[in-house]
């Protein structure tokens, strides 16, 4: 499972990409890379464990921004684009981020979609993953159907980006 989000820091966009393997998260923040063991806390927070200690994290939406509280310091982050917080492939090619079962296909060929619109719901690792169109445009192809088992990387939906 992986995800991606762009924040604005000091006026510059910063890409943050995260990949999960088991309980490990590898995060790229711009050119830097970090790895954590992720543990959920009763009550809604998350602990990020490293070899040198651990960080306590709470997150919440804050209007169009995002609040994150790390070790008792709150940061109010500016989000660059509404590209979607869930598993996103931003090219218009919606691939299965991991092997799983398609729960729902929410669009059909020819539908107009927004970048943030969920097009497929995938069940994997017993969790539900919402896959977003990634770009605004028109659905060109549907590569799966509800109930089908799909391998990682399988193209589930193709969206042609609309010209703006």
């Amino acid at each position, binding site marked *: 499972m992986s995800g991606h989000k762009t924040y604005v820091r000091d006026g510059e966009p910063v890409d*943050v990409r995260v990949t999960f393997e088991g309980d490990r998260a590898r995060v790229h923040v711009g050119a830097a890379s970090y790895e954590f063991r992720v543990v959920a806390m009763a009550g809604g927070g998350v602990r990020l464990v490293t070899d040198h200690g651990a960080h306590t994290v709470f*997150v919440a939406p804050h209007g169009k921004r995002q609040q994150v509280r790390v070790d008792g310091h709150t940061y109010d982050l500016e989000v660059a684009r509404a590209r979607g917080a869930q598993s996103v492939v931003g090219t218009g090619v919606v691939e299965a981020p991991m092997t799983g079962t398609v729960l729902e296909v929410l669009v059909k060929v020819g539908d107009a979609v927004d970048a943030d619109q969920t097009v497929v719901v995938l069940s994997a690792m017993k*969790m539900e993953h919402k896959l977003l169109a990634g770009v605004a445009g028109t659905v060109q192809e549907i590569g799966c159907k509800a109930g089908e088992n799909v391998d990682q990387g399988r193209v589930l939906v193709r969206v042609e980006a609309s010209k703006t």
Partner: protein
Amino acid sequence: MPSFQRVLIANRGEIAVRIARGLRELGIESVAICSDPDHDAPHVHAADRAEAIGGQTPAESYLSIDKVLDAAKRSGAQAIHPGYGFLSENAGFARAVRDAGLTFIGPPPEAMLALGSKEKAKEAAIAAGVPVVPGSNDDRGDDAQLGKEAARVGFPLLIKAVAGGGGRGMRLVQNAAEFAAALAAARREAKAAFGDDKVLLERYVHPARHIEIQLIADDHGDVVSLHERECSVQRRHQKVVEEAPSPLVDDDLRQRMGDAAVALAKRVGYRNAGTVEFLVDAANKFYFLEVNTRLQVEHPVTELVTGVDLLHLQVHCAAGGKLRDVLHGRDLRPRGHAIEVRICAESPEHGYLPAAGRLHVVREPVGPGIRVDSGVRQGAEVSVFYDSLLAKLIVHAPTRLAACARLAQALRDTAYLGIDTNVDFLRRVLEDEDFRAGRLRTDFLDRKPELARGPQAPPPDLALAAAVIGMHALANTTASTGNGTTGNAPASATWQRIGALRLWEPTR
């Protein structure tokens, strides 16, 4: 022991929750009241039962004497606790409660009236021999006479417009040489602003500390001082941090301030809990400010260092009980150190802008010496209608430094997210070197604007990484339970989710 069977709480938020808990411990049924937006607010569910009184704004609900009295009658309550704010210092309400045959848990309306205006309160203080800020309010248009008065009042002094407000017509005068010119300027400004050039003179107490004395008084002539609270850390007369004992008060000053407060209370026939506020100058001279005729927001610090429960004492006194029955032989001297911070929905980083919205995350600290008096719950909407106070975080520790460390740590363990709060600001105050050293003055925050501004550095990589991980983690723990759930009793997946919020583990 005299008491009540049922008491209505004419308030909301943390103080209503705290009163409901206290009443339950005393074996007294509590009745909450609620406006429409407070339908399922924490204070409603903290009480044994609730009376909906409708309305959105305070005026339509918690400030409506008729609605509150109706609710009290409907519920069969014998007494009303007003909390703080709202109707708590309204003598008309106290009288209406009494006229309705109910007990007002607070002072009699006569005492409230005697202390209600600053002018009257000052007269009562003078009559009781309590020092007041030296001044002169007898302007007959004779500038030479005023010059003599100024010399008597002493410098530095303030010239204020009698009709004034908002600082217009006000002049700070450092010495006699400046007086005549400043007086002329103040008169011109006052005339222009208010059409009245009368002025008054008042000694400028600076640097000053705000220190107040907690009193409790019964119907039998006993008035007991529960000593001081230090409340100098303020912003525009709004207290931000309160503590007891004051790091700046010694036994002698404590005794003299307590005696003064008791004398004033006796003079006006005061009953129940009340607080006498003083300004204290650099030479430890104290001057009467005003009396708060109610339980105060900051009462917990007094409870922690004296070992009394002020709510219990209020109920005891209101029911006609004698203080000597419950306080006799008790050592009430301050022990250890207690500090309270007020957690508010406001952004010090943005000019203290008030915040409203949904509290997506509420994480309140627990542990030895930590007390949280909270009036909110996770998921609740913080309304623009009411005070911005979300909760009070109070610690008690053997020493002031240990209390600072405990409170700073408790603030790090605290999270109220979804709206702006002053939690980070409070932590910065607690970690400030002057604060930790006890160098407190009423202009403490004015002199340290950087505490409100906060660090100007961009968020570190860790914050960005944590934001993305945290978001994904939460989003995915709400994942589908899918099929395969056997139907016997709640699905184990359900329990896992609501329970452990276990991440990255398949639900069974």
